[in-house]
């Protein structure tokens, strides 16, 4: 355990990290006889960037799916904002304030960027079917409000030029950014990013890193991310969880993790001196 485990501290670059936002307690997830996650516990503090790393098949994406409510662990408890979370459907989790992006982009290809991002506002729309159909009263008011939020995000992520472009026509790097925009549109408390830099070139990675840091900085969004690029993970995150074969083998600041012998052996490779 490191001295930051309790939360409530200031990072080196002056960001305030708050109390525990989410806590995973002794999570075990099995698919038939296969143990994907075995007895893992960790927490996520408000305002921090938390990375989950590990070799292929370590169970990182499964862990993210547990957080997002897509998988239900056989054992263990998920605590969110100080309350134990009962078994929920993903949409209920989303309504609680958890949004995510996907490893393989999951956007609506035929719809424009704007419409895709607007779908992220779904959890903030309450107008009834009748009102929506006529687009009168509450439905119209809501649309205007939601559009304003969406436009701010479009401005923030600098995708004004493709606002009306169908997503299917965009290059990969931009699609990733649109997906981030959609997740941000939900104004989440916790943002889950599943390999946000996968398949990107150096320049795109730099842009994406900048955006992730800016999101955290400007909106104070707590971010949990899975990423393969070690340089990116070590530069971006405040704390890192390392997984291997479904077990947690390390947890701490990037420096601590980097110097953890078990992590070096399992993931970064055995050193040759």
């Amino acid at each position, binding site marked *: 355990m490191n001295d930051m485990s309790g939360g409530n501290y200031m990072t080196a*670059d*002056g960001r305030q990290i708050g109390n525990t936002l989410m806590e995973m307690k002794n999570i075990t997830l099995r698919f038939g006889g296969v143990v994907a996650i075995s007895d893992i516990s960790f927490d996520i503090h408000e305002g921090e960037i938390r990375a989950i790393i590990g070799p292929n098949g370590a169970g990182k994406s499964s862990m993210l799916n547990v957080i997002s409510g897509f998988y239900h662990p056989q054992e263990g408890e998920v605590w969110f904002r100080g309350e134990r979370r009962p078994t929920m459907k993903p949409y209920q989790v989303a309504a609680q304030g958890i949004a995510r992006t996907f490893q393989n982009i999951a956007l609506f290809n035929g719809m424009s960027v704007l419409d895709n991002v607007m779908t992220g506002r779904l959890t903030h729309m309450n107008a009834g079917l009748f009102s929506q159909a006529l687009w009168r009263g509450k439905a119209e008011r809501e649309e205007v409000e939601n*559009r*304003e939020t969406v*436009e*701010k995000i*479009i*401005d*923030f992520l*600098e995708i*004004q*030029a493709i*606002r009306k472009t169908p997503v299917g026509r965009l290059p990969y790097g931009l699609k990733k950014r649109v997906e981030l925009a959609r997740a941000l549109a939900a104004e989440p408390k916790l943002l889950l990013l599943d390999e946000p830099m996968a398949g990107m070139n150096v320049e795109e990675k730099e842009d994406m890193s900048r955006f992730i840091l*800016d999101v955290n*900085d*400007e909106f104070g969004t707590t971010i949990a991310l899975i990423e393969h690029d070690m340089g990116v993970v070590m530069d971006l995150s405040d704390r890192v969880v390392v997984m291997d074969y479904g077990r947690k083998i390390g947890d701490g600041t990037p420096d601590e993790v980097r110097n953890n012998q078990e992590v070096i052996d399992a993931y970064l490779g055995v050193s040759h001196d």
Partner: protein
Amino acid sequence: MIWEDNLAPLSTATADMQTIPQLLERNVALYGGKAAYREKEFGIWQSWTWAETAKEIDALALGLLNLGVNEGDHIAIIGRNRPYMYWAMVAAQKCGAVPVPLYQDAVAEEIAYVLDHCGARFVIAQDQEQVDKVVEVQDKLTGLEHMIYLDPRGVRKYDHSKLTRYQTLQEQGLAAKAQLQPELDARLARQGSDTTCVMLYTSGTTGRPKGVVLSNRNVVETSKNSSEFDHLRPGDEILAYLPMAWVGDFIFSIGQAYWTGFCVNCPESPDTMHSDLREIGPTYYFAPPRVFETQLTNVMIRMEDAGRFKQWLFHHFMAHAKKVGPDLLDGKSVGFGDKLKYKLGDLLVFGPLKNTLGFSRVRVGYTAGEAIGPEIFDFYRSLGINLKQLYGQTEACVFITQQPDGEVRSDTVGVASPGVELKIAGNGEVFYRSPGVFVEYFKNAESTADTKDKEGWVATGDAGFIEDGSGHLRIIDRAKDVGKMADGALFAPKYVENKLKFFPNILEAVVFGNERDRCAAFINIDLTAVGNWAERNNIAYSSYQELAGHPQVLATIQAHVEEVNVSVAQDPMLAGCQIHRFLVLHKQLDADDGELTRTLKVRRRIIEEKYADLINALYDGSDHVSTETEVTYEDGRKGSIKAVLELRDAKVVSAVKMAAE
């Protein structure tokens, strides 16, 4: 016509207008409720009336006073075209300070030079990127005291001891209004025609940039003359998208806008410029030839992807438009049948095309800076767009010559603008004298004396002549670039380069041959056009370099070069400038590498030095040459690229033979 009513007060109320802040006050009185600025933000056009603009500017001016701005201070302004940045310029003027707009894409070193040269005490930066650049060099700048930033994104956590947000500065100014207003009024009262209006750094095709000092007389007089020349009026719309540090943008978006009272529209981001152009539909529009070229290239590329019927429709009506369009625009008589067919073409092709390009409402369009290919020029004119040419420079507040409506040709730059006198020196260099002639180069009396003589005549550095009959000025080339071939024939590289650049596949060309027996050329391919061609022909390439070296690309370029040779040979005076050998460069010439100016003009001397090995190879007859070139990335880091380039011979035509035919 609602504007007719306003025209009378305009001329009477402006007789004693001497400065930009005075014009602002007048505009508030005359057009207070009309839009002065618009900017697209969050997907919606936000607008500010003249009255609101004046309030914003006042608040900022008070804020600057509060910060300790003195009369005569220089305030550097760095950022893209946003209303706030224009207000910053006028606010600086109100305080009696001199605004110095800088190129937003300049690297930190270039910014450091200018900030140091003008001794700027304050910098107004648009966003984090610009703030970072100044922070990077601020240790070297002893004069710099405080920075103001507009967009707080990413800057919030910076040390704010020498940093203030734009809006905060305005609030501070308003809070201290009671005690500062008398001082502001006193400073305004002291300003007149001779007060410095702005200082603009010329991009400088050679050497360090020079600070051109323009007085309010220069700017206001020139704006008045040029606005009247083109009958600009309140209610006109322009799109401000060219660099704020460039004199043209200053004259169009501040000088003429304040004189006439028209509305300045700012795009949402540089990438959205084209869709914003369409939405605004400006009535007064300026673009350098390169922009028109790019647009035409894009149109042609998209037409090649269109269906067969659409292609036929386009080519059929464009051919007709080329025949009668320019005449219709000049008000010459055209047969009834031709007129009818043009109308039909307008309905089916030209109208929708103009709408797509954003030119539906253009009443006055200008291009300048470089010669424009006649075919490009004619294309736009035949669509019915009143595109004209002007000739100008920073030292003249832009306008030296302009083409009057109805006297437009692609090979001249027009007649002397109102108030401008022209003369041609013995060596062909063009000189002018006008109310717009600059005061001086800042802290550079020597250059001032070299450029401007005691009687106020300014050397343009361009060679040209005034055409008999029409009185139009024709520019051949830069005076120092016009040279002689070894056999004494005239060498005018730009003349040939412009012909080459008309081909959509060629982005840039540099022709060599001064004091040599034959001409040779460097060619830059246009990645958009050639890339599209490669895609359609299933030619795979992984980089610019690979595409540029592809044998089929070389063959295409060779055909272009040979076609240009035929065309050059038709002018006996310039027939010696035909290109004997050429190569396609492995990298794009770039302002970051110093090969182009920030306004994208070729810097010959630098290219000659940097690529000396390639030029030698062009003249020593070798087939291939291997080379290594240093490149500068956008973030200022340096790298290098290696390449083996193929050199090719091009067929030349004998001028005598052509004449005999």
